[in-house]
């Protein structure tokens, strides 16, 4: 190691340890994304997902650069006299830059180590919470899931050093700011990337996996236009009240500090927005898919190879204190074709699990169908219950009964029926799905000459669910298989996604608050000047609050806007299992990240604003 680097590292270390609060804030801006990425990838990725991990870590690295550049800028501005002293005692500008780079290295190492150390209990705690809330997930802790952490650490550390290098290379611009307008070139490049990103996302097929790269282009474009937006706000500040005017102009003048902070909040919020829309939509879709296509039954289903074996299973389970209720359907050698209504093509999709079942009201109740009194009466009168996809004309349903054993033409049937809701109730909350298109009471089935067979049964939904021991006993019976169907507890990553999204919200909140705190540290002399010339406590508070709101609010609103389209497109890619693609936008979540967090941060800034001379800058002379 050269003498120059030795001196740089020593100076950096001394500076960082003598200003522990500022160092801790800067390190936390690096550590928080690492914490999130560490916990996220411990659940989402395995050691074999290297390419996906790199794609996931690139936005994290970008976020670290954006968060760290203003933080290092604050450090450099407050230590400018020391850096100048270094040059005046024989150092070169390179030595000064190396000192800043060394700060990035040391702070980055502290932040990365802290983030990963905290990610371990975070990972363990999240696993415990998931298993407690949803035992079906059976999430286990495997250290192999942490195989990508060294890569994360390297990329985060590299991002920290890159941020320091950017800060060092703009040392001359890290002054007290100025009136120079932002570069039109970067604005044009940013605008171009924004448009390209938008068009790229819009041009994708709904199920395309290429959303992430286009979303990154979109976010990068937005990042590049943030300085111009801040400048615009600063230029328009003349018409604003004093507190807002001061905040807007200060933000404009110190764009080196504020623009990256706003961009960082924006990227974080955009990620949470996209993640939220994607995961909530996926969850919604999986739930709908599960309700419709899986057996719409109770907690335990029993399948058998024949009606006789099912009858044995019913008897055996009764001896085992479990009520098994079979559902009869037309026998294999019969096919009942029921007429559809004329407007079937225009009807909302509501597929039924069965076409025709033969059951009485008691059986239906055991299967979770809640019938109206009229429907129960109709069944008792020997009338069929017709769902919405069956044409009922003059109190009759037209159908044909065909035998699959012969080539004879089917017998036309006129089945007395009433329209009725035959949707079964989900086990817990969820979508109510059609059990069958047509329910024929047994007495009517006999008169129609319909032969039936019951090879599918459920544990009576009105009784407590069978215990594990009772299920184990059932599984020992010959010729049947037992399936535990948990309609609202399908195997999904919902809980993980929701918890990770909440973790992301928390981290965005903390990062926003930290960025605002650093901006306040940087602007404390102006704050104290304002107080010393007679600003009311309320004016001082409002100035602090509007400064915070500018960074957190602008960043959050832009973040929601930038994350919305990729999130919706990602949702389209993830959904569609049920047929229709859709995006379930979690407005409450967006409200939290787009409105509540900025307001909370502004409120904290308001409450904690210095209102007496010397509180903001004790050294004001």
């Amino acid at each position, binding site marked *: 190691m050269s003498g120059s680097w030795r001196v740089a590292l020593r100076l950096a270390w001394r500076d960082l340890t003598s200003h522990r609060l500022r160092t801790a804030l800067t390190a936390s801006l690096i550590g928080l994304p690492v914490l999130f990425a560490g916990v996220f990838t411990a659940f989402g990725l395995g050691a074999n997902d290297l390419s996906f991990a790199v794609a996931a870590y690139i936005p994290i690295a970008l976020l670290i650069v954006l968060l760290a550049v203003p933080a290092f800028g604050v450090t450099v501005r407050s230590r400018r006299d020391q850096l100048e002293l270094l040059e005046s005692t024989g150092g070169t500008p390179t030595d000064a830059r190396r000192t800043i780079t060394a700060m990035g290295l040391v702070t980055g190492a502290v932040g990365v180590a802290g983030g990963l150390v905290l990610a371990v209990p975070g990972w363990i705690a999240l696993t415990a919470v998931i298993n407690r809330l949803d035992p079906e997930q059976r999430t286990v802790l495997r250290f192999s899931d942490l195989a990508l952490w060294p890569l994360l650490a390297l990329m985060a550390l590299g991002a920290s050093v890159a941020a320091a290098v950017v800060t060092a290379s703009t040392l001359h611009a890290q002054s007290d700011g100025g*009136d120079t307008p932002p570069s039109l070139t970067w604005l044009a490049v940013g605008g171009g990337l924004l448009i390209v990103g938008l068009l790229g996302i819009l041009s994708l097929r709904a199920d395309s996996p290429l959303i992430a790269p286009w979303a990154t282009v979109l976010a990068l474009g937005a990042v590049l236009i943030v300085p111009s937006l801040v400048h615009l706000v600063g230029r328009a500040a003349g018409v604003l009240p004093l507190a807002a005017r001061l905040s807007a*102009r200060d933000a404009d003048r110190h764009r080196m500090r504020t623009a990256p902070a706003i961009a960082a909040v924006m990227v974080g919020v955009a990620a949470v927005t996209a993640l939220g829309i994607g995961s909530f939509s996926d969850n919604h879709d999986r739930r709908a898919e599960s309700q419709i296509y899986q057996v719409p039954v109770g907690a335990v289903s029993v399948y058998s190879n024949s009606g006789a074996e099912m009858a044995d299973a019913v008897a055996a389970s009764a001896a085992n204190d479990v009520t098994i209720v079979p559902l009869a359907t037309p026998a294999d050698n019969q096919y009942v074709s029921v007429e559809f209504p004329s407007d079937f093509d225009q009807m909302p999709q509501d597929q039924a699990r069965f076409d025709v079942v033969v059951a009485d009201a008691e059986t239906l109740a055991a299967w979770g169908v809640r019938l109206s009194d009229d429907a129960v009466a109709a069944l008792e009168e020997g009338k069929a219950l017709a769902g919405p996809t069956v044409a009922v004309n003059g109190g009759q349903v037209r159908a044909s009964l065909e035998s699959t054993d012969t080539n004879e033409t089917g017998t036309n049937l006129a089945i007395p029926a009433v329209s009725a809701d035959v949707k079964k109730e989900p086990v817990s909350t969820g979508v109510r799905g059609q059990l069958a298109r047509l329910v024929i009471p047994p007495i009517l089935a006999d008169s129609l000459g319909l032969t039936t067979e019951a090879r599918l049964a459920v544990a009576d939904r009105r009784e407590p669910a069978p215990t594990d021991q009772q299920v184990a006993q059932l599984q020992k019976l010959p010729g049947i298989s037992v399936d535990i169907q948990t309609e609202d507890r399908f195997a999904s990553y919902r809980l993980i996604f929701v918890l990770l999204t909440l973790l992301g919200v928390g981290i965005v909140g903390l990062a926003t608050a930290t960025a605002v705190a650093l901006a306040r540290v940087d602007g404390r002399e102006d704050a104290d*000047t304002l107080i010393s*010339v*007679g*600003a*009311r406590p309320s004016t001082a508070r409002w100035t602090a609050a509007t400064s915070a709101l500018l960074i957190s609010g602008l960043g959050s609103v832009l973040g929601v806007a930038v994350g919305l389209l990729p999130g919706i497109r990602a949702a389209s890619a993830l959904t569609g299992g049920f047929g229709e693609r859709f995006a379930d936008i979690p407005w409450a979540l967006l409200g939290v990240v787009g409105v509540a967090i900025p307001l909370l941060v502004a409120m904290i800034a308001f409450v904690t604003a210095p*209102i007496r001379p010397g509180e903001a800058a004790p050294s004001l002379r």
Partner: protein
Amino acid sequence: MTSGTTDVVLDVAGAVRCYPDGDLTIRAVDGVDLTVSVGELVAVMGPSGSGKSSLLRLAGGLDLPDSGTVVVDGLDLGTCSAAALARMRRRSAGYVFQELNLIKTLSLAENVALPLELDGVPVREAMSIARAALSDLDLIGAERRRPDQVSGGERQRAAIARALVGERRLILADEPTGSLDSPTGEDIMKRLRERVDAGAGAVVVTHDHRHAAWADTVVFLRDGRVVDRSTTNGSAA
């Protein structure tokens, strides 16, 4: 004590202010008595570290004494709320900082108008008064410029204009001529004198005996204590 119209605009009685300095405690201001009336300009002199700036901060309500009292325009600063102190700084006492402390994001006129605007004066009117104050200090044409766009002397005059603007009866200046050449420094002192003669009291910290000659009273501090007081004719010109 309540605010009221009186000839005494500053009354410091037995003020003590201590600061920690490593393991030691420094008595920066150690039992100082000082009274300033309307029409009186007091110069405070003394070596570095003698407590001049600390005394001025107490007088301006930027710091509070550990013991003793500081009364500005009839208002006992030790018993005031933060809001009352702020009102005092807007209406009663103007402060010229050693480092000027102009807000860099505001133009010179906006900086000068700041105390007025903070006091509820409409922006247009405040700016008009500020431009007149800048004009009085020969800063015509620089109103729209920001502090980093003008010379050190112009910044200094703008800081003084901010302290003079409005109806304040007490001017506190911490080395207001520190970064100025002699003629400009003399000019600044002359203008302060004029303002005092027009109906204000002033305390000016200075190292320069020629500038102190503009004062009615010169107070010498050493180790936080008043070691000498002398009176002059208050007219160096």
